[in-house]
């Protein structure tokens, strides 16, 4: 799964046309090894089109920020290449690259007014004062901050600082906008709101956005495509729906959360239909064309917690069902998470919050859970 396996870019279709139609951004076998032998990024291959919103998602230390910093020129790769519209960015310093970054803590210039912050890039381009002020005001208008143009960054709220940071990079008309945990510094309500604002800003601009986050929800809600990274490598590249419902590897399934994993052996095979059985006798069937496993080989599947139902138990458990004991009923307002065990790994069922009264206080009882075959996903290791 280290290649850009997923085909055409689904999200780009909706974007408005932009003048700068090049071949897009290519990361080719990109590798970064720090002095001391730590490999932060290992053989990353990725293609991003103009107008596409791509999110690099992964846990702390997975190499996503280093990848972004290499695209921006703040780190230099030790292997591979970065090509933007046919031009290799390899050894270019940041100020000679057509990319700009929105940093996690915004990195506004505290000694400059909002207007001077926004016009900084234009000043560096030697644009005359009047022209750059006008352009900067346009950019501020775009983010709704024209009244605050003369304030210093410290007199702004977190959300306003965020918008200044956006205006500051947009005004330079970059070919690619890089966002490093852009919502990390905002409180939760504001984060939710900025997700929508960022997406609504990106679509009409038709700009390439590459966004780094460790927040699964944020990635799912914003991306055209998600690149899940772990341990310096890409685990899966796919649209949000696929990532959420069809995780390709155990790592993705666990990182995205709320997936039940059944680890066992291939028990029987009927053409493309496999039946996997774990050591406690739980059996799940999955449709997996092209899989070459023989009976007895190790295999692993996942089922989303929301696709699992709680049913009454009678007789021995059939295929795609398991008898479990309830460990804990967790009420979360909108939904209820029921934690269960079948003897092996913990299992999880998500049901709507209305069903809480029927589940309350039932810890210790045995129930049967079941799922449909089409919700089962075969995982690679």
């Amino acid at each position, binding site marked *: 799964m*280290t290649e850009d396996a997923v085909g055409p870019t689904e999200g780009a279709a909706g974007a408005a046309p932009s003048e700068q139609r090049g071949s897009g951004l290519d990361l080719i*076998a990109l*590798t*970064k090894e*720090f*002095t*001391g032998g*730590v490999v*932060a990024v*290992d*053989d990353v291959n990725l293609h991003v089109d103009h107008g596409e919103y791509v999110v690099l998602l992964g*846990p*702390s*230390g*997975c*190499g*996503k*920020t*280093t990848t972004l*910093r290499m695209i921006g*020129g*703040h*780190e*230099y790769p030790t*292997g*591979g290449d970065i090509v933007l519209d046919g031009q290799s960015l390899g050894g270019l*310093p*940041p100020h000679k690259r057509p990319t700009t970054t929105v940093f*996690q803590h915004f990195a506004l210039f505290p000694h400059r007014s909002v207007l001077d912050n926004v016009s900084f890039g234009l000043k560096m381009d030697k644009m005359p004062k009047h022209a750059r002020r006008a352009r900067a005001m346009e950019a501020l208008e775009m983010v709704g901050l024209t009244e605050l143009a003369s304030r210093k960054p410290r007199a702004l709220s977190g959300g306003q600082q965020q918008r200044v940071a956006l205006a500051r990079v947009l005004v330079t008309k970059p070919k690619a906008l890089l966002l490093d*945990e852009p919502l*990390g510094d905002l409180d939760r309500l504001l984060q939710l709101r900025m997700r929508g604002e960022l997406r609504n800003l990106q679509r009409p601009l038709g700009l390439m956005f590459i966004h780094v986050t*460790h*927040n699964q929800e944020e990635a799912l809600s914003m991306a055209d495509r998600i690149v899940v990274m*772990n*341990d310096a490598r890409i685990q899966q590249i796919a649209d949000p729906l696929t990532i959420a419902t069809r995780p390709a590897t*155990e*790592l993705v399934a*666990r*990182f995205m*959360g709320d997936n039940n994993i059944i680890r066992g052996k291939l028990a029987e095979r009927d053409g493309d239909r496999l039946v996997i059985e774990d050591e406690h006798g739980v059996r799940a069937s999955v449709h997996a064309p092209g899989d070459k496993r023989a009976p007895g080989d190790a295999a692993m599947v996942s089922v989303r917690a929301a696709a699992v139902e709680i049913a009454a138990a009678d007789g021995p458990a059939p295929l795609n069902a398991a008898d479990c004991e309830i460990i804990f009923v967790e009420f979360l307002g909108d939904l209820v998470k029921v934690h269960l065990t079948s003897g092996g790994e913990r299992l999880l069922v998500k049901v709507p919050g209305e069903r809480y009264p029927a589940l309350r206080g039932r810890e210790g009882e045995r129930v049967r859970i079941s799922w449909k075959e089409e919700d089962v996903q075969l995982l690679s*290791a």
Partner: protein
Amino acid sequence: MSSSSPPDPRLDVAEIEEAEEIETTPRTERALGDQGGPRGRGGGWVTLAWGLPGFIWLAFYLVAPLTFIVLVSFWTRTDTGFVRDWTTADYGALLHPFNLDNSYWKNMLTSFETSLIAVAACLVFGFPVAYFLAMKVEKLQNQIALFIIALAPFWTSFLTRSVAWAYPLMGREGALNQFLIKVHIVSQPVDAFGFSTLSVRLAMIQLYILFMVTPLFFLLGQVDRYAIEAARDLGGNWFSVFKEIILPQTMPGIVIGSIFIFVLTMGEYGTVAVIGQGAVSSVGTFIQQQVLGIQYPQGAASAVLLVVVLIFGVFGITRFANLREEL
């Protein structure tokens, strides 16, 4: 490149689960990122360019003079200075009659005693000040404002403060004696307040206490107040809280303050000269006498021995805390 050994999935899963629970800034990545980067790449030359002028300056005006003292201490005295004839005679003279009649060691002992008293007194009297500022003043702004008011005298002349200490306040007819007579604590003026060792030592506390208050203030500010509350919760009285929680965490500050005060008071010259008015001597005034008598090699040897004592003293003080680890 592409096919290195596959990672152990179990290990990774554990990491992922951890990451799921705690949504923090990707510290590892940032820490790694700081090492590299375009600035880091050409780092060697850039660092050299920034550092070289300063170190040349320090080499010429600091390291060279100090090294030269050591050299001169092994040279031979002449009527106008010294010549490069190697000898250890001056050390012999200083070390041979190693008894307390030797005025050098007498002075050394007095200075050492003064230093110990100064360190102890600055700690005892300075700690409550730092504690009050860091723990009992609520707003940070007020803390800093009060701290600066307390710190401001540091910037004024030690010499002027010594003068102000020695003449109007201390002395036979000083304000302190007059006050004590007026409120009938003493009937005669206390002579010891005059140009005396006691007066010098009191002045030292006044001059150097800020070197103790400052590091203590910064370290006490970092002590977690909830840790103190937790210790009280768990049944500690104020003394055990102080001993188990506050003291260990402020130890580096005590050590730094002690080193400063020890070194600076051992090497005192101006204050002793002004307050003591010749009646009090120290290693500093002793060496000054030798220099004025154009006995440069002996003065240098005395200075080297002083530095040896200082190094041992500082080394001894650092035993109380591992500064490298705790700062």
